[in-house]
């Protein structure tokens, strides 16, 4: 499958990946300022050492968000992606309290629904990787959706 490779040492904190994610998922004309109730499905945070940590969904092998989902909206698909069916989601947000990385988030719009990375399954290219100017996020092929170089699993924020 398409793999996102993240080399966090290259992150400059420009947040282009966040903007690209918002725009890729905007249905209401984000560039025209018409779509304010939308948030990125990724986030650049600071880790324990005060260093930038690009926080992306791992599409985990045993996803805590899916285990917490009481509506059946969140599913680990056969292709390895963890996808939310927003029609089924009732916005209980038990996934939000269960993802140890903070990558399941409430939507910001009026509809109560969770938001997470969908792997840009409908696009040829992942929007976040396409715009990354430093090579922090790059694409490859492997069995995993997201691979962190020098993973520091305790640095979740």
């Amino acid at each position: 499958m398409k793999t996102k490779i993240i080399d966090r040492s290259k992150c400059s904190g420009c947040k282009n990946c966040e903007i690209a994610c918002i725009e890729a998922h905007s249905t209401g004309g984000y560039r025209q300022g018409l779509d304010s109730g939308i948030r990125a499905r990724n986030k650049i945070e600071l880790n324990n050492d005060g260093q930038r940590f690009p926080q992306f969904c791992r599409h985990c092998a045993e996803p805590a968000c899916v285990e917490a989902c009481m509506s059946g909206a969140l599913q680990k698909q056969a292709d390895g992606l963890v996808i939310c069916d927003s029609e089924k989601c009732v916005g209980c947000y038990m996934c939000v309290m269960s993802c140890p990385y903070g990558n399941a988030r409430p939507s910001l719009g009026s509809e109560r629904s969770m938001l997470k990375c969908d792997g840009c399954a409908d696009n040829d290219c992942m929007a976040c990787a396409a715009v990354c100017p430093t090579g922090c996020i790059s694409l490859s092929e492997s069995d995993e959706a997201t691979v962190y170089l020098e993973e520091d699993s305790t640095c979740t924020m």
Partner: protein
Amino acid sequence: MHHVIVGGSAAGTAAASAIREADNSARITLITTDSAFFSRCQLHLLAAGKRSAEQANFLPADWAATTGVEILWNTEVTGVNPAAHTIYTATGESLKYDRLLIASGSRSWAPPIPGITGELSFSLRTLEDAEQIFAVLPFVQTVSIIGAGLVGVELAAELAQAGKKVNLVELAAYPLPLQLEAATGARAAELLRSAGVQLYCERKVVGVQRQENDTPESLLLDDGQNLPSDMLVTAAGVRPNIEWLEGSGIKTEPRGVLINEFAMTSAPDIYAAGDVTVMEDVLLRTVMPSPIWPTAIHQGRIAGLNMSGSAESLTRNTGYRSSLNLLGTSVVSLGPVNNPDPGWNKELQAFTDSRGQECLKLLYHDEDTLRAAILWGDISAAGVYADAIINRRPLPEPALAGALSGAKFGSEERSLL
């Protein structure tokens, strides 16, 4: 290998899925008193007519076919003989098993109040409960709910929004006493009252007066108040469905079937998972139920894998995680906020997020270790906090610094923009 699963909610179905994942040829029989799969966490939405029974199915529509699970609907299991590896149903049938899973859940408990049962008097635990409430709603004006826990509060909020007059009676000093503490409890009370819910805290229902046709007339409180009521919902807690285990020798406690870290009961080849179980809580170090959906799924999955020959372990078991929608405000409660260690520091921060929402962050910490938290409004980092609390992980320093001092994290985050 024949696996028999008693119970068809989160734990039972998660176990069945896990067994099928581990063993393509195993025979799996799931026996349930229900007539359909439904998510218990959505019953308040069904009762208010916001979701249909079909929408409340948390499994794919073709789940039984794809997993090859034989399902016996509307069937009560009344006994088990561990030595004979046999269970018995209410209709007098018996079924042999190689491995048995007890996932029979719990049921609503009605406190011993004169007149509490009768016409237009419900609990909210099954699909039928929710459907019956929805069916009678057009004919009632005033609904009284006994118990302001998660079920009572979420139902009160829905019914108030649907235009009903709602009385909500709670023994504790504030609503959601297991999920909140005094300051957040006061805010929850304020929210409910602003939505029109008549909230009676530190009050006990001592009687229900009924009309000649057995429908409720009024609720009598311990301070003498009389609350006219057309309909009654009891949401005062649950009891485990363990009566069918009597005489089997399977070790139970008043609050459920005792399981070990492998989800095994005291009897050979018998496992248990979900609301019917008790085991040690990792945060409180006490044997107790952990009656939340994610834990039921996890226990069911671990049980299913172990019934299939694995030795997976439930290492971080806790029910001290709740997420609720309080009239549109998201609230997450983590850790024993209702029973904090007196030595923990308590810190309450109020702030307004970037969208103008008034938020609260209440933290119990022990030096730099987070022990419990309530996130109110902005819950987006709740999973990170939960991980820190449950796995005793130091919160990432900037987050903790931000958590404990308020300003620091914000300014560092802004410096990135």
